[in-house]
């Protein structure tokens, strides 16, 4: 009955809406305030940036694999950055720096959170749009501006910033310390400020939408785990990103106004500098106060997305929903007090190191709980191998592999010898690089029908998954052992050290594995682009999922639902409920329509309902006895 009413109302509303605003190309595709369009803008910008950053990584991988070989093509493409067809050592560091910066901030923060928070928060909590659509639009455009500024640094004379993505002063603060610390560094800082502005505007919007704009019946404990993850991620971002701005602003002062916040006792190229009284460690503290929550900003949305996708495709409720939420909350809180584990060997007071080590290893507990819960979700499931599901599984596998090595690095004593080696590179590329990008790709495959109204090709998805999954392991697994041999990261070549030459063949192997994984992304890009235009038309609920976004019509409309916003009656994970007609029950289905599958548990806060339920069960069982 109710659905009928909604439908009628919807038609009327739709026509009204059409009369009111005439979407021009500019308001629809460029300065759009519709969260779905902004999500697509974030996604496509994010993918573009990811492809650029990936290309950069292939460039420096080639250098590592063939340190003695000249590639004339590189000189043609890069000019003075690759004289004689060999990368310049300073430009190599620029590549490493910009690869890291783009991947961490532009792809895995904005590309991941920006896309899916924007798309899913209003759709899954049942809101017509974000709390503040205009700010949402600004958020995208600041992000876009940040991208443009960051990439423009490739076109300045001395090249982009090259002090590593952590931009530790004094290297980044003294323009004479390396070519990349001149104009390139200025652009990096400007870009980062725009980025943080974008991320704050986005974050505030996500938090307020989740807190204030949930539809009727959608209490916090009925929200899908995706929303929990996006919400907590946004909280993390809002609380930690401003600290980065503080750090960056002080760095700008040191660079251009002669202050000494981070600088002291410096003799550069034989010239005594006037700086006195500052401390580079201060910057490290400020940077990692954001930097560590940042890695959780990157991984938590991937966790939420994977949880949702694994539940849908296992046709089984996520195991331990409450535990999953509490572990997310635990991670959120703890992530603010672990930043010092990046600084064990910086000369920070060793006692402080000890404390940070304790907090760091505590954070492994909620992570372990999540992993076990994912495994339990798969156990006795009915697993459909959709590309999205495969990527979610890949995310779990990477999270385990990379997470476990975190126990080594979080241990201050072990970190002495592992710090800044390839062990670290392997660790974070698995746990936050690969795992997060797999979460993002899982999300793209899963919600592509919602975004573009069409399906992606499954077989290409399978190909893409297996090549990328295997490739990522081939790239990062051997790196652990390089780290255990004391091979430092950010080395332009390992030719100067007799002891590191044994790794040359491994480096060549890694490079070819990386090239394979990079080429595998062509399968994705081809699939993504062609499916937007020529993909199979999607049905309303192609994955037979429970959440609200699948109750909206396939054709997008501003306001998401024609007519009334649906009311929510149950949690989002009623898959394969015994006694139910189908193996999924939409969140909008009232309990009164599913008497045969209701459980006493469904009426925890509802004594009247429970009474009804017991009555129904009694009569039902009586009938069966008769």
């Amino acid at each position, binding site marked *: 009955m109710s659905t009928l009413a909604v439908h009628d109302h919807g038609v009327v509303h739709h026509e009204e809406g059409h009369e009111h605003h005439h979407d021009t190309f500019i308001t629809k595709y460029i300065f759009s305030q519709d969260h779905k369009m902004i999500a697509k803008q974030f996604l496509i910008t994010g993918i573009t940036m990811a492809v650029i950053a990936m290309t950069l990584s292939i460039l420096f991988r080639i250098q590592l694999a063939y340190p003695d070989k000249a590639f004339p093509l590189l000189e043609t493409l890069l000019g003075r950055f690759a004289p004689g067809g060999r990368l310049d*050592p300073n430009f190599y560091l620029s590549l490493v720096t910009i690869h890291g910066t783009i991947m961490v901030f532009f792809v895995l923060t904005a590309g991941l959170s920006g896309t899916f928070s924007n798309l899913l928060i209003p759709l899954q909590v049942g809101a017509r749009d974000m709390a503040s659509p205009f700010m949402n639009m600004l958020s995208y455009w600041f992000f876009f501006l940040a991208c443009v500024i960051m990439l423009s640094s490739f076109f300045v004379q001395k090249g982009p910033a090259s002090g*590593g993505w952590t931009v530790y002063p004094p*290297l980044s603060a003294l323009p004479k310390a390396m070519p990349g610390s001149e104009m390139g560094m200025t652009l990096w800082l400007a870009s980062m400020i725009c980025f943080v502005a974008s991320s704050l505007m986005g974050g505030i919007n996500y938090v307020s939408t989740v807190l204030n704009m949930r539809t009727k019946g959608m209490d916090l404990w009925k929200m899908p785990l995706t929303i929990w993850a996006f919400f907590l991620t946004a909280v993390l971002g809002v609380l930690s990103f401003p600290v980065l701005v503080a750090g960056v602003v002080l760095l700008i002062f040191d660079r251009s106004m002669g202050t000494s916040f981070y600088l002291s006792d410096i*003799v550069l190229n034989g010239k005594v500098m006037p700086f006195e009284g500052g401390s580079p460690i201060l910057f490290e503290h400020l940077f990692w106060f954001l930097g560590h929550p940042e890695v959780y900003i990157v991984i938590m949305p991937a966790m939420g997305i994977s949880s949702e996708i694994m539940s849908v495709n296992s046709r089984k409720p996520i195991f*331990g929903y409450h535990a999953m939420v509490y572990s997310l909350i635990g991670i959120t809180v703890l992530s603010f007090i672990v930043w010092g584990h990046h600084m064990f060997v910086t000369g920070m007071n060793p006692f402080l190191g000890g404390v940070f080590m304790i907090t760091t290893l505590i954070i492994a507990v909620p992570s372990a709980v999540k992993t076990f819960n994912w495994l339990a979700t798969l156990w006795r499931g*009915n697993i459909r191998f959709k590309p999205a599901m495969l990527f979610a599984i890949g995310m779990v596998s990477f999270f385990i592999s990379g997470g476990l090595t975190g126990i080594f690095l979080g241990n201050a004593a072990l970190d002495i010898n592992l710090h800044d080696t390839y062990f670290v590179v392997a660790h974070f590329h698995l746990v936050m690089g690969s795992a997060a990008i797999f979460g993002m790709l899982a999300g793209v495959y899963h919600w592509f029908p919602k975004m573009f109204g069409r399906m992606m090709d499954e077989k290409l998805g399978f190909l893409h998954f*297996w090549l990328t999954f295997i490739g990522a392991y081939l790239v990062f697994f051997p790196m652990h052992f390089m780290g255990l041999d004391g091979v430092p990261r950010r080395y*332009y070549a390992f030719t100067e*050290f007799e002891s590191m030459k044994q790794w040359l063949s491994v480096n060549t192997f890694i490079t070819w594995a990386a090239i394979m994984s990079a080429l595998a992304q062509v399968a994705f890009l081809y699939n993504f682009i062609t499916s937007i235009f020529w993909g199979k038309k999607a049905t309303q609920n192609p994955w037979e999922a429970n959440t609200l976004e699948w109750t909206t019509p396939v054709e997008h409309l501003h306001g998401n639902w024609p007519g009334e916003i649906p009311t929510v009656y149950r949690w989002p994970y009623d898959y394969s409920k015994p006694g139910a007609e189908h193996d999924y029950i939409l969140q909008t289905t009232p309990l009164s329509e599913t008497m045969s599958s209701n459980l006493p548990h469904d009426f925890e806060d509802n004594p009247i309902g429970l009474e009804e339920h017991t009555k129904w069960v009694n009569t039902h069982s009586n009938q069966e006895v008769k």
Partner: protein
Amino acid sequence: MGFKKFIKSKKILSLLAVFMLTGTNLLMAQTNPGLASPSQGAGNSTAAVADDKSAMWTGAGYYVLLFLLLCVVIAIVGKILKVYDLTRQIQGKKELNWNNLMAAICLVFLLFGLYGAYWSFTVQGSMTLPEAASAHGVKIDEMFTVTTVITMFVFFVTQILLFTFLFRYKHSDKRRAFFLPHNNTIEKIWTILPAMVLTILVVFGFFTWQEITNSADAKGERASLNIEVTGHQFAWELRYPGKDLKLGAVNYKLVTGSNLLGIDYKDRNSFDDLRADTMYLPVNRSVRLNIRAQDVIHSCYMPHFRVQLNAVPGLPTFFKFTPTITTADMRNRLNNPDFEYLLYCNKICGGIHYNMKKVVRVVTEAEYQQWIAKQKPYLTDALRKDLGMPVAAPAPAATPKDTTANKRLALNN
């Protein structure tokens, strides 16, 4: 009908592929002269350069073609699969079950992955650092082993479970998943168990860390040997104390061309400070490495001793450790006559970051005394002149004094 359509599209696809292949060829062929001519026009090039360029473009074109070919092959395989699938359906057989295929690949991946991990552990694992050459390093290695055993156990168990579950519980239309929203007992177990294991690791690690970073010399223990290492772009400078075993004060404002470290000669301890090119360490004697940086952050990394600490400008740091295996001994153990302990930079510091190497030699006490006697002081004649000190007179006098001092030292020890 749909079937016919696919056949058609296959044709179109192959046509397109052929078109692209020839097209790329043409494009490449055209690019060569096009690219060579402007450089000839500039007059600074010879035929050789043009040849190089064309070789370069053919090389790149070759790889692009290979990749395109691969794409075409994949597309054709895809189409064949589709056609095969559709013919099966037309014949009334079941369509291809991708779920089963993926589940099977998961299992294959697990088996290959396990073997690959095993191979990596044995082959690449044996390429890692040799045993720790310092007293505290042995403890670090012990803890490393314990952590490895625990984490690798978890690694193998969870990955095996993950992929076997995928295989075991693949989709079937006949079955419904088991509705299991939560189970408080098991959740408690797998919260508390990791917490307990981690507590053990934390306690173990915390005390080891405290021990390593404990900087005070123990009572009755011989005072640590002070050595200073200063990082700058892009080298390390070493300073050994002279007969007084004390390093003189340093002030960065005093740095000049002749006084590279900015040693303060108002401090009398500075006068006999020695300069060295290679870091010699006496075996089994506690060494206090005083670490400084002049320009940017460097990191003093000596992996064989499990020693690393950043060199931060404005924040002198130090690391205390005791080398236990001499270089000669290590060479024997590794059966590698060229083996050297190394100190290198492990914090990005600029373009030549990858080449900031210092050789470290651990020698016996006697060899160390011999070596240190030969080292030259930082206070050179040129520096004396700069500082306005008498030049000629003390220089010859200092040498015999130094030797006697060393002899006395050797006797005392």
